[in-house]
């Protein structure tokens, strides 16, 4: 479980030097094996990605002539208040996404890692993962019902326990709509984080806890000084994963609020979709998409570098 993609692959212990004289058939084997996958990937991911970057420098409505626009589209990103709102919302979302579902998962993983019958543990981890099995489109519809202002479960529940003062148009109030949708995202992701973190906690060497106990560490200290360092790789992974997913968020917003009211729940992906396919500002949409790709790639690079640098020697 300790190989890192970014690491030199010779660490994996499988290198061609161990092979003796190889036949020609054996030499072309990697190309035969990896070739088809890479070809599809190149045609349907790498090329379109390059195409998007290119389109970002043009003014194009999706039909008719394209005119070179230089950096105009990129300049527009920072002057267009709706796109700025979308970027700001996405940053808020990304920060929350690295905190909320991960903390929920961490708490539950620590609780589940305590002495429990394995069946009970499996039951809870299964239940927590269940939302992740649903399509986000399905989750969006379910929570659209929960949040319905007139007959939704949340307002009905609040009303029935005498808290009708707390009833809200959850998706209609610009100041809370984004957070209402974010809660659904956390709901959908915390189970995934939990399964990763639970496995990691269970892999922490038990003798480390014993040693800590001998030093008189309480549960809290053990958590900070044994558990957290022991699962740092996995923690790093889930944080990076939720952050990257945060910049891809589309389905939930698109279905639950459509970016509204008054564009206040737009995120980058919905802005790209709207500009490209509704407003027919294809060049501008491409520029926003390109910027988003650069943000995520930078984020991932920084995170992986950081993880590499801080990884313990014995990795």
């Amino acid at each position, binding site marked *: 479980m300790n190989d890192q993609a970014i690491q030199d692959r010779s660490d994996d212990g499988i290198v061609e030097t161990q092979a003796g004289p190889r036949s020609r058939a054996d030499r072309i084997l990697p190309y035969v094996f990896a070739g088809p996958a890479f070809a599809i990937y190149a045609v349907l991911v790498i090329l379109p990605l390059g195409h998007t970057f290119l389109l970002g420098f043009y003014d194009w409505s999706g039909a008719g002539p394209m005119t070179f626009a230089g950096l105009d589209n990129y300049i527009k990103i920072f002057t267009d208040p709706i796109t700025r709102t979308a970027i700001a919302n996405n940053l808020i979302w990304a920060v929350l996404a690295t905190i909320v579902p991960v903390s929920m998962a961490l708490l539950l993983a620590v609780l589940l890692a305590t002495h429990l019958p394995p069946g009970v543990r499996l039951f809870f981890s299964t239940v927590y993962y269940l939302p992740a099995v649903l399509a986000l489109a399905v989750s969006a519809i379910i929570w659209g019902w929960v949040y319905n202002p007139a007959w939704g479960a949340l307002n009905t529940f609040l009303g029935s326990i005498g808290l009708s003062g707390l009833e809200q*148009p959850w998706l209609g109030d610009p100041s809370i709509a984004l957070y209402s949708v974010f809660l659904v995202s956390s709901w959908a992701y915390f189970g995934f984080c939990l399964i990763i973190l639970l496995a990691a906690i269970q892999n922490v060497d038990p003798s480390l806890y014993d040693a800590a106990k001998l030093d008189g560490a309480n549960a809290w200290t053990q958590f900070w000084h044994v558990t957290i360092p022991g699962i740092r790789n996995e923690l790093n992974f889930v944080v990076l994963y939720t952050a990257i997913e945060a910049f891809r968020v589309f389905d939930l917003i698109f279905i639950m609020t459509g970016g509204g009211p*008054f564009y206040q729940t737009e995120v980058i992906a919905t802005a790209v979709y709207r500009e490209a396919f509704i407003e027919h500002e294809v060049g501008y949409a491409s520029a926003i998409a390109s910027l988003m790709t650069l943000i995520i790639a930078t984020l991932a690079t920084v995170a992986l570098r950081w993880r590499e640098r801080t990884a313990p020697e014995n990795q």
Partner: protein
Amino acid sequence: MTKMLNLAVIAAIGAAPAAALAQETTISVWDEFGAEPQRGAMENIVAHCEAQIPGLTVDRTTMQMEQMQTILTTAIQSGEGPDVFYSSPGWSTVGPLIQAGAVADLTEAYDTRGWRDRVQPWAVDYVTYNGSAWAVPYEAEIQGIFYHADILEEHGIDMPETYDDLIAAAEALQDAGYEDPIVTAARPAFVLGWLESSMLGATIPVDTLEEIVLNHGSWDNPAYHDAIARIADLYERDLVPSGVLAYSYDDMMAEFYTKSSPMVLTGSWIVANIDGNFPDLNVDYMEIPPVEGVEQRAPKAAGGGFMMSANSDKTEASLQFLDCLATPEAAQIWLAEGLSRAPVEGVDAEAANLSPLNQRVTEVVNQPLSAFNLYGVLPAEVNDATWNGIQAMWAGMMTPEELVAVKQDAWQAAIDAGEVIGQ
């Protein structure tokens, strides 16, 4: 002289029945009639036309209108698109298509095939932009307030005659326990367009509106400020749901159909659904009643129409199909089975056995006077800015004055870019 000749040709061709096609031809048609009763009615119309035009086969694909907008231009330009498609002929929708050269100009067909005699003139006007006709309109619709007549009666409320009557009626209903006397919705944003169009019809004299829309006047005028102020006022008085910004079209209709709300702002397309699925409801229709000095009228529109792709290589077959659609026989099927109104002359509404509500709506549709349906006449950018602006105004993020300024800016930009209709 040429004109005389043309008239003779028109008379000759216009009277001629549809001819058989020179060879077997399959045309592809995209429409949005995927749900009953319109799905079956359109199937029958197609069968009728295929029987009338030997050699014609129609291959239908149904999709949501918004979806179609997304792919239509590209599909047509790549040669993969339909020969005939059904779309809103409103300028917000077809403006970009026409400007991209994707829609065939039907003016000549109108002139030579006798369509001008068969399609109602107001509807022809509606699909005519800058001198050319672009569609065979197939959905004559009006917008306004649909209300539960029994609820109003139960509370002793007469049908409001003036705008102030309407507000008084709504407040009386609120006192009687209806939290949301008038329900509307914010998703999709064009639902608010029905409110805006109806409000403008009730508060702005028709010549002032024409001056703005057709002669490119300014929205920054007292009449429009007043209309927007009244829209703001509806929310401030809590006459629309306090959570309206979270309401989808479905939420709005649910509240109306369950009688939680006595009045809803929508359009005549709901009539088929009421007749089909809620026959026990006692629903009636009214325009938003006018303020003093404005004549009562409903925003009328051709909500949809059949158009031909500019790239179709089956022009004759497509035109013959459009020709068949524009006959009273086809329109009769559309009314009797689809419960929908094509603005085609010679349809016998009595023979269609309509419900009282459907009769009333058909009557209003046939009235000559009409307000502007803004979706139909303004460019999409202007409408988007306004309808999102109404949401912002209700959310307290924009003042009515700012909203008017936003609309006027978008309007001016569209005028400068040549994206508007009229002079």
